[in-house]
């Protein structure tokens, strides 16, 4: 490991994964506190692992549910991923994940009576602010939620005047600053090996693979919502989305930490990812695209990004403009 730049580290566990924030100087206590508070607030809304979350309430009864101001970009991204993948990526897989054993108590024991993943338009309606449900549904924002939270945490750093950082939430990371980060792409079948090295500079890189959140034969957390089964054709993906405008205070200045436009349309042109938050929310987009790549090739997503994905036969596909090297 290189230790080129002296830096401070802030490590903690959140939403079921280890986090690490690297900055040139130690973070002031008030910034650390603001980060913890932001994560707690996000978790209180979206976690399906705690009974007091909004998501858990929505799983108990139908209704019209007010979401906090951070929800529209996440729902908009989910809708476009849903359409681009023909329904394979869906926030409605929560009940099926529980059904397969990935539940609050980590029973990790599939229920022999399987449940279907409902289709979006049959189960819920999102109007840009409120979610209307006609039956109890268990949302799971695992496809993009952690990447989104990385963006929200990075925005706190930016607001605090920190202009060089790496926020790494294990698998989802964002880099900002002048010295690029060399990131090994871990081999999904051998964590001691890498299949390539990516040079990350003022961009978000999100990785997804079916090897760790896995529990038993063929059971892992990346579900095809159409079949309700864990995916098999693709075993690992990486997506990179640059920060629009590169380094500089403008890059994250429009993050929706306080107010958001409420004009997000509930439906979009199929396959087109929302552009209005593209500049600031690049980790969320990278996270969502990494999930989408399990179901469709990169060309299915009308979005400017770089990618690598490994198929079950061990072959890889990657974009031509990749900034790094692949060990071919």
């Amino acid at each position, binding site marked *: 490991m290189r230790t080129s730049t002296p830096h401070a580290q802030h490590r903690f566990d959140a939403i079921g994964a280890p986090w690490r924030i690297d900055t040139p100087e130690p973070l002031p206590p008030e910034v650390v506190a603001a980060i913890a508070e932001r994560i707690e607030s996000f978790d209180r809304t979206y976690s399906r692992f705690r009974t007091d979350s909004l998501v858990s309430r929505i799983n108990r009864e139908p209704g019209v549910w007010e979401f906090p101001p951070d929800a529209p970009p996440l729902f908009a991204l989910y809708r476009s991923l849903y359409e681009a993948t023909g329904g394979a990526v869906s926030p409605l897989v929560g009940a099926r994940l529980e059904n397969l054993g990935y539940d609050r108590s980590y029973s990790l024991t599939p229920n022999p009576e399987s449940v279907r993943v409902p289709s979006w338009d049959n189960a819920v309606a999102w109007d840009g602010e409120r979610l209307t449900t006609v039956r109890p549904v268990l949302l799971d924002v695992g496809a993009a939620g952690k990447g989104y939270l990385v963006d929200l945490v990075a925005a706190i750093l930016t607001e605090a005047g920190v202009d060089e950082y790496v926020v790494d939430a*294990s*698998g989802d990371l964002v880099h900002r600053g002048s010295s690029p980060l060399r990131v090994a792409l*871990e081999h999904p079948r051998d964590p001691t090996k*890498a*299949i390539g090295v990516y040079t990350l500079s003022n961009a978000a890189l999100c990785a997804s*693979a079916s090897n760790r959140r896995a529990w038993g034969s063929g059971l892992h957390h990346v579900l095809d919502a159409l079949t309700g089964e864990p995916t098999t054709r693709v075993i690992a993906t990486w997506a990179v989305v640059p920060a629009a405008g590169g380094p500089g205070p403008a890059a994250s200045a429009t993050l929706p930490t306080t107010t958001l436009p409420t004009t997000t349309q509930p439906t979009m042109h199929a396959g087109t990812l929302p552009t209005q938050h593209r500049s600031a929310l690049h980790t969320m987009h990278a996270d969502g695209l990494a999930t989408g790549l399990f179901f469709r090739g990169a060309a299915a997503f009308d979005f400017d990004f770089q990618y690598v994905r490994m*198929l079950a036969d061990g072959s890889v*596909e990657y974009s031509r403009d990749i900034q790094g090297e692949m060990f071919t």
Partner: protein
Amino acid sequence: MPISLRTRYTFGALAGLSLIGSLAGCAADDSTASTDTGSGADDSSSSSAPAESSTGSDTSTDAGTDSGSDDGTDTEAGSYADGTYSAEGEYTSPGGSESISVELTLEGDTVTAVTVTPNATSGNSVRYQSDFAEGIADVVVGENIDDLDVDRVAGSSLTSGGFNEAVETIKAEAAA
């Protein structure tokens, strides 16, 4: 690594298409003739190599005139001229007959780029082909992370605490 192996992996990604045969006409080595299972009769019309000249334009031109001759009399074994090759292939899908254009770039006996252009008309074929049309396909070899000069490793999310313990518990119960 012989080209036939790499191209096999390449097209393995394409939902079981079998169109390698039409590419074999581009190769001057006998070792790839075994992959020439398909549209051999189409080679003269469908193989046009090189499609565009690479930096080594002279050798590419030579390869072009050699294409279609599988007798392997005119080149040393195991070596292919650098350049960009193109071919067309046909296959039958549940939706009917489909065709596909493939362009691949060779540098030093290695496939450095593959472009697949769909001519598909049916739903699934359009999807599988167009999804893949812009990228590079290859086979990777893992290298030891400890030997690399890197700052981070990016794979699937590490899991903290409970999940790992639960998996270990399940394994222990299963083994008991």
